[in-house]
């Protein structure tokens, strides 16, 4: 029996991007080409006989096919690694680093462009729990359907049925269509089916980011159990605490390639602190390639100090400015910049948006560039690294146009000079934020 569970060799996956999303001709173009064929052939014959200049039909076609081929993106490029049986491996990286593409290739959902993968054992993937759930079907029916979709045999599902129901805590609703379920119940049932898949190799993509805290705890417990049973787990997450807790090895992907591979705390450190100055600023100069959609696209995000300088490190007492620039591409909606301040444990400290500026809120939007700067007062954030999720959204209806996790980040330091929140205290200071608050303190007479 092989000791290797997964071996990946020179793996690459190329996508075509750009205006024509997938590089395919529409049927109309195909039909057009076909319809014009006799004329072109005729013209070519005429050309070879007579002395007409070169036909124009090629010129009409070429620019189109040129744009079609012009923009390709390597979501994965020359990725190689080996995973031993029983290893629990975390995969981290920024948005668009290729994490999800890697899982999709490994689970055979999409085919690689280059390279080779050998997988020893049955693969189960939790790329999204509840895949194939049908809202009209009952809980019982969905357990069987979902199980079959995930590759379980019917007798296997029957054997585990009671266990699944018990794990999901939905016994009294088994014969109710899942469209009447609360979202919590739905999630529990969906995860329960997936969790009982018992594959040799489990691929997990960010499933635990949903559901309430107690449910997350339960899922985590199940995942740990799976890991301890000697199964191989590949686990994509943005949550560093979860990676630290579950994984014994971590792979860091950046722009489609493996940049670090090793002990989780070292790789996470590499991810969080390497390349720090570039983490204070992200710029997308080309509108067509910037994250976003037809309503808004993100141009840049920057961390600035009170003198307008790009900074990676800020004194805890000083204010910090987060500047976001985005293209507003239409004039009917109100795209607005949203910031989530997230600490190293993955906890969102707070969220804020530019509607807080009442004047801007009531201004009609015109197409063009928008710069929104949010100022965070000094003596407010806690020490440590702060990561910013930058989004551009519009409300009513609520649409997310841009969502960049870890777009920029900065370090808050407390020099302990006595005039910050902690004062002269030098020990561990708890709390996710560290606001300077007003205290009323008076001495009272002894005999009150």
């Amino acid at each position, binding site marked *: 029996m092989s000791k290797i569970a997964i071996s990946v060799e020179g793996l690459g996956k190329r996508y075509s991007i750009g205006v024509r999303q997938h590089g395919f001709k529409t049927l109309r173009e195909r039909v057009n080409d076909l319809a014009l064929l006799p004329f072109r052939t005729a013209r070519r014959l005429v050309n070879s006989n007579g002395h007409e200049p070169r036909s124009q039909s090629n010129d009409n076609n070429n620019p189109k096919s040129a744009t079609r081929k012009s923009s390709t993106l390597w979501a994965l490029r020359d990725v190689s690694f080996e995973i031993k049986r029983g290893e629990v491996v975390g995969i981290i990286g920024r948005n668009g680093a290729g994490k999800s593409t890697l899982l999709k290739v*490994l689970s055979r959902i999409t085919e690689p462009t280059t390279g080779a993968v050998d997988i020893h*054992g049955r693969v189960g993937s939790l790329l999204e729990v509840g895949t*194939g759930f049908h809202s009209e079907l009952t809980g019982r029916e969905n357990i069987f359907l979902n199980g079959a979709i995930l590759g379980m045999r019917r007798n296997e599902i029957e054997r585990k049925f009671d266990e699944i129901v018990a794990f999901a805590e939905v016994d009294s609703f088994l014969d109710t269509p899942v469209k009447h379920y609360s979202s919590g119940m739905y999630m529990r049932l969906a995860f329960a089916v997936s969790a009982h898949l018992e594959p040799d190799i489990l691929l997990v993509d960010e499933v635990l980011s949903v559901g309430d805290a107690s449910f997350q705890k339960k899922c985590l417990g199940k995942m740990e159990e799976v890991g301890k049973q000697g199964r191989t787990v590949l686990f994509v997450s943005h949550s560093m605490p979860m990676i630290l807790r579950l994984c014994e090895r971590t792979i860091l992907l950046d722009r489609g390639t493996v940049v670090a591979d090793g002990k989780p705390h070292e790789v996470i450190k590499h991810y969080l602190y390497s390349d720090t100055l570039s983490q204070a600023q992200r710029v997308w100069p080309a509108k067509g390639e910037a994250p976003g959609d037809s309503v808004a696209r993100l141009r840049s995000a920057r961390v600035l100090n009170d003198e307008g300088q790009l900074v990676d490190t800020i004194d805890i007492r000083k204010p910090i400015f987060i500047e976001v620039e985005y293209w507003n591409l239409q004039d009917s909606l109100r795209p607005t910049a949203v910031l989530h301040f997230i600490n190293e444990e993955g906890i969102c400290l707070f969220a804020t948006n530019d509607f807080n500026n009442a004047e801007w809120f009531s201004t009609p939007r015109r197409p063009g560039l928008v710069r929104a700067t949010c100022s965070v007062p000094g003596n407010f954030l806690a020490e440590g690294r702060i990561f910013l999720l930058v989004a551009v959204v519009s409300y009513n209806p609520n649409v997310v146009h841009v969502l960049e996790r870890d777009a920029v980040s900065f370090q808050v330091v407390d020099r302990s000079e006595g005039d910050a929140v902690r004062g002269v205290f030098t020990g561990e200071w708890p709390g996710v934020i560290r606001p300077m608050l007003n205290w009323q303190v008076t001495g009272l007479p002894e005999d009150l």
Partner: protein
Amino acid sequence: MASGAHQEHPPTRIRPSKGWVALDLKGLWDYRELLYFLTWRDIKVRYKQTLLGASWAIIQPLFTMLLFTLFFGKLAHIPSDGVPYPIFAYAGLLPWTFFSNAVTNSGNSLVGSSNLITKVYFPRMIIPGAAVGAGLVDFAIAFIILIVLMIYYGVAVTWNILMLPVLIVLVTLLAIGVGMWTSALNVKYRDIRYALPFLIQLWLFASPVIYPASLMPSKWRWVLWLNPLTGIIEGFRSSLFGTNKFDWIALGLSTVITLGVLVYSTYTFRRMEKVFADIV
């Protein structure tokens, strides 16, 4: 698989595919239960929250038959090869309704299952296959009415009926072939969604459902035979009523064309399959 006991699988090899792609029959067989469950889901979901439930499977061909009888049988006096027109029309509508519904449903099945395709691996052919499978269940229900009609009109069953299972297999294979091909094309070109109902409607008039093939002058009948449904529908009538002899040339041609369609669509499907998850 029992927990802990690892069976030795042959390793799964993932490589970029080039040129001809083998039809992975073993993979299809491994997922046969999924085919069953997806068929079962399609049927179950289709009639949930409907007032009349599965009787819709009967209503569609039955009312079409009544309309056809009124307009084509009674008013236009279209001949019906010596059997009463209602039962003549119904025997044609039965395979036709199955075929047209199966092709329409499987043609739209891949696009409708994009959430599955982008999230889980399984042989993609199962999706259009399940849509055809669900059509077979409707076909079986609608068949009951045919039996009732045959008893009502006193049509005697002959040995010809033995050909019926073969014809059902043939029309199923044709539906799978056409459905699979359109479903794959639909992923790439969404025009199919709009073109399909229209083409199906044209196909109805090109098939001997309303009229017998004998209506066509024998000099031109071969044109009708190029439509693989002609041999199948005429064959249905021959096997059910026994009044007409089987037209073996037409049937043979239908079989050859059906198999050709099946091979071509399987090849096209396998070739396009690898990009489904990226473009659906």
